């Protein structure tokens, strides 16, 4: 079976004025369907850039990037937006909920891009909130929720349109330990019970333990998990 995400010779170069910064350097990576992958590495190693490329938020400078058999590196802005809407759910460190909307309305946002009628959109949002254990907070605005609850609303928003892939950028980076455990357990459940493929960037080795395996990035290059472990042991 072909992997869900196939990355070949992927490079990303940013240009700041005259400065050329190569953030990713010829990365090859396969992520199987149903995997829970943790990406670790020091700051500036390129893990968020890799995550953004996988999620279709940015385009590579070089190389190919296939998700579910589709070359997303060749898609234009509009096509990429449509592709993201139906294929990827995003979870960020700072939740990024719209502060003036209720939890339910926040979760409903991705469904506005579908042709679902309002009643269906609301019921789907309610199911997603139920799944993350926040059915009773549907009418609360983000400011009325704790950090952990806000992150769970963000996860509900990420899964409401039933995407195959969840990309999570430091989802526990702003949470206390207890909330972090709840969020990671939820991600693990979505991976195991609902078959979501999860790619998570984290600095936290304890968070990475919830993933089925971990890859390390260093200076824009993937380092084998085993080698990293060996290096850590020696």
């Amino acid at each position: 079976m072909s992997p869900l995400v196939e990355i070949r010779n992927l490079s990303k170069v940013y240009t700041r004025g005259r400065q050329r910064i190569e953030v990713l350097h010829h990365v090859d990576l396969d992520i199987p369907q149903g995997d829970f992958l943790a990406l670790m590495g020091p700051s500036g190693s390129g893990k968020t850039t890799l995550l953004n490329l996988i999620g279709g938020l940015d385009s590579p400078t070089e190389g190919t990037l296939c998700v579910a058999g589709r070359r997303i590196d060749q898609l234009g802005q509009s096509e990429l937006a449509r592709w993201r809407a139906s294929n990827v759910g995003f979870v960020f460190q700072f939740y990024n909920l719209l502060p003036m909307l209720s939890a339910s309305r926040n979760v409903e946002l991705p469904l506005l891009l579908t042709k679902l009628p309002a009643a269906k959109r609301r019921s789907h949002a309610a199911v997603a909130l139920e799944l993350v254990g926040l059915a009773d907070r549907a009418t609360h605005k983000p400011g009325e929720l704790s950090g952990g609850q806000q992150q769970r609303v963000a996860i509900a928003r990420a899964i409401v349109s039933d995407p195959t892939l969840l990309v999570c950028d430091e989802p526990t980076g702003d949470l206390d330990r207890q909330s972090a455990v709840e969020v990671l357990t939820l991600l693990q459940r979505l991976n195991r019970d609902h078959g979501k493929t999860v790619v998570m960037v984290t600095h936290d080795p304890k968070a990475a333990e919830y993933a089925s395996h971990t890859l390390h990035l260093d200076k824009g290059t993937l380092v084998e998990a085993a080698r990293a472990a060996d290096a850590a042991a020696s």
Partner: protein
Amino acid sequence: MKYLHLVWSALFRRKTRTVFTIISVIAAFLLFGLLDSVRDAFVGAAHSAAGASRMITTSKESFVISLPTSLLMRIQAVPGVSAVTYANWFGGYYQQPKNQLIAESVANNFFDLYPEMKLSPGELHAFHATRAGAVAGASLARRFGWKVGDKIPIQATIFPQKGGSNTWTFDLVGIYHVTDPQLKGEEGALFFNWDYFDQAAAFGGGTAGWYIERVANPKLADGVARAIDAISANSDHETKTESEDAFQTSFASQFANIGLLVGSIMGCVFFTLILLTGNTMAQAVRERIPELAILKTIGFSNRSVLSLVLAESVLLLALGGAIGLAIAGVAVGGIRAKLGPQIPMLPVGKQTWLLGVTLMVLIGLLVGALPARRGMRLRIVDALSGR
């Protein structure tokens, strides 16, 4: 419509700022409604008499030049004229110069042509039978506490009596009412007998300030007006006959180029409004860059983001504009009822609303354009990382 809550919530994200901005939009469109109503009356009033059942004949040279009363019978004889009366401006004040009056001496049949001014048969009879009799509008009588039977001393500002006195004392024999709320302002005048004026005034007797004609068929009013003016053609008292509305309009037009004046004021008001709302929109979008980035992250296209910001901007203008125009509509009704035809104002009608809505949309699109472009062009990864 499914995005309305999104646009609405974005608009009221900073309630205080939005409310203050809307208040300024309301003020601008209230002013627009009021001034456009005046402009419509001045600029839009057709100078054709077609469709008018009541017409006014004045001197072609100037409103202040009187016409001979000998014209009465000749105008009466014009085919299509069903009744004629005449009046003379008197003016004056009551007790103090600040109490200026709309006072006119009028012919016996004056009230036949103004059926909207209701007098009881007894009062009308008393008016005809009392040499120094006068009738006052109900609101004027209320203002000065007059009642039937009172003697009303009026100080003349133009016409002294033959003995040199400026004080004209009238017997108040009736109080007329106007039931049509749109014409309520007509209750602010005082009328007395032209015959008394003609006999007692030191000068100005034997003339009429203007004639008022009722036409049998308003559709033929243009032709009737031409026929009336033809009577005095090439004489030393050539006339100009026009509909009553057009007369009011041209009378007020003597004071200024109202169209230009209103246009200039509105230009300044809307220019200021553009700066103000433009600043509000720019701030609103600048603050929401990460939120717009999130919308794009979850699949909103560049065009969707552009449309959302433009819709927000148009909604801001539409909310304030609609409230402002609605208030203007009520205010114009009130002003018309209070002041009547002395200040020409047309009700805030479809044309004003159409122009107003067009302005709301255009200004909304204009002030939203730059912020919307910024939102559309933002790079998700830069916006999310705060760059």
